[in-house]
């Protein structure tokens, strides 16, 4: 029993973290809310060069042949940055399903996904391929074979589409735990978002003064944020544990994934509430950055199965 990441895994995370600090500050996220694509101009290419997009693809297909355990910390960092790109759908969900992953590995083609638990395919308009799953089968379908219907998300970077695929369209593929990868990837991003909202709030309440003292010196504020820190502390190991389970395909993967997604969703929700409340009116202002992360968290809490959905799945296994 050794519950820790390897030096290589941490180095891979640090490289992506450095990239996102440089290329995806809040100003870039904010720009994606109003630009044409809802995406960044530079990050996708860098992620392709670093091998992140194809991390799960076999080396023979130009990928890194890595496991979800290698990718989970990267997804967490993408959450921390509120990266406005379909990294989860492309790198975590789709790549292992693609008959020919090469164009996706290189980033030439963007792949997104629509699953019953996550029906709105984000950024489908700028994707070349969509993984379309219903209750009976999973298909890989070229976007130009699909009818897309646009939907607006509270997170305006997320350009959502319902996809209508003709019966014969696309290539059927075997599921291969795609739902588990999607749910766990969302959980990892929620952990990153939780960390970010906590960091923003700790910084703010340490500086903001009211009644002649820092707001963060009030016990009520301390306890709000201590509660958020507690939720983070005990959600995070479940996410990493589920990533190990997914990587080694031990029998309990769905239970571990559901424990992770349910707990990460609750941690993000509680932290978002605490962050907004401790910021007061400043955090409630559109010009302040908190809401960029808050709304991404709201979106991910409800997709790939929300907390009650996943607890019900655990319940079916243990009760």
């Amino acid at each position: 029993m050794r519950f820790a990441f390897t030096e290589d895994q941490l180095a891979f995370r640090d490289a992506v973290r450095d990239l996102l600090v440089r290329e995806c500050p809040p100003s870039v996220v904010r720009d994606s809310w109003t630009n044409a694509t809802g995406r960044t101009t530079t990050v996708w290419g860098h992620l392709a060069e670093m091998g992140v997009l194809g991390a799960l693809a076999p080396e023979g297909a130009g990928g890194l042949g890595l496991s979800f355990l290698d990718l989970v910390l990267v997804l967490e960092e993408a959450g921390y940055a509120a990266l406005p790109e379909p990294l989860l759908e492309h790198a975590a969900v789709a790549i292992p399903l693609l008959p020919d992953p090469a164009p996706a590995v290189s980033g030439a083609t963007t792949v997104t996904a629509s699953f019953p638990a996550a029906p709105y395919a984000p950024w489908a308009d700028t994707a070349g391929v969509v993984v379309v799953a219903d209750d009976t089968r999973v298909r890989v379908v070229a976007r130009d074979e699909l009818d897309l219907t646009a939907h607006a998300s509270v997170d305006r970077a997320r350009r959502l589409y319902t996809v209508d695929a003709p019966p014969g369209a696309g290539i059927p593929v075997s599921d291969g735990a795609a739902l588990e990868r999607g749910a766990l990837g969302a959980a990892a991003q929620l952990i990153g978002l939780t960390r970010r909202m906590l960091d923003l709030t700790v910084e703010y309440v340490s500086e903001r003064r009211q009644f002649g003292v820092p707001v963060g010196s009030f016990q009520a504020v301390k306890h709000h944020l201590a509660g958020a820190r507690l939720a983070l502390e005990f959600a995070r190991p479940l996410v990493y544990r589920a990533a190990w389970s997914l990587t080694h395909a031990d029998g309990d993967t769905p239970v571990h994934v559901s424990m992770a997604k349910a707990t990460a969703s609750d941690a993000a929700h509680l932290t978002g509430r605490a962050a907004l409340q401790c910021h007061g009116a400043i955090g409630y202002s559109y010009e302040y950055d908190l809401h960029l992360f808050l709304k991404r968290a709201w979106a991910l809490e409800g997709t790939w199965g929300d907390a009650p959905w996943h607890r019900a799945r655990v319940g079916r296994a243990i009760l």
Partner: protein
Amino acid sequence: MDLTFTPPEEAFRAECRTWLHAHVPRDLPSGDTRDGFAAHLDWERALFDARWAVVSWPQRYGGRDASPMEWLLFEEEYYRAGGPQRVTQNGIFLLAPTVFEFGTPEQQDQILPRMAAAQDLWCQGWSEPNAGSDLAGIQSRAARDAASGGWRLSGQKTWTTRGAFCTHLFGLFRSDPDAERHRGLTYFLVPLDAPGVTVRGFGRLDGDEGFAEVFLDDVFVPDSAVLGAVHEGWSVAMATAGAERGLTLRSPGRFLAAADRLVHLYRARRDMADPRVADEVVRAWIDAEAYRWQTFWTVTRMTAGESVGAEASLTKVFWSELDVRLHEHALELLGADGELTDEPDDDDAGGAARWMKGYQFALSGPIYAGTNEIQRNVIAERVLGLPRR
């Protein structure tokens, strides 16, 4: 104890209901946008023309001399009919009680009818960049200009709700530069078209331009712009703050209507809903009922002459946190549809966009009008009598 409504009360309710069902507009845009605000003004003026704008006010100001109980019935019917948020509420519910209590007859005659008719549109100038929760931290200044018989106002107000669309501002300014904290403040009434006033609207959480910064640069106002006594603005304002926390701003009608909409959403989505959610929906529905009956309880006491003081903090914490829970449970029921700000395809329940919009609005409740953390301090210290620090 008699929990039936009197024939006059029932008649009043019936009259409200009939008129509201016939006239409440459907699907007004958000009142926190310029276009939406204009659309809401048409509705506010329709209310005034039918004398429903300010039912509890005296007839001469456009009201009906309605009792507090009748006012509650109006509110229940207003929200049951699907009436929109009142964009005039900061004037009608926050400033007007203060004008009735502290205003001169001239001020009352000048301010109240135009407020009721939505001709003058009032926004609140409390908060400043360094005076949010700590209202006593106000730095905006009022300098006496004896020669001109008035005052010169300078400073910055912010987080002013709908300030970009209003015509007047009421707020506190430091009139005695040597006084600190709660002392030496004066309550001023300021036309936003006065020379030296600059208003910049900015976005609330949902992106609508529902906030404004108001910059005042040596703005002259006459002595008649002072409400209450000079340097006594804090005690004058506290009457408003009490009204803001108390029942005048948040009658139960809105939450009863939201609870009913939540029940309808549950029915439409029950097949997909986790069983747990049923318990939470019922709990929220019960809490809305509890708020309703606590309000009837309080209004009966007020009618008997008792005054409501710090208890207003109990009300503010309860409705604001109930409002958040009502919307959280709706979003749980909506699942993956919850993030939408438009409607899902082949939607069975509808209102996905409305719930997310409402959720963002509800999240302001625990923050404004004194954060709920401060309200809980008030409950502990002034209702329970715990020692201050």
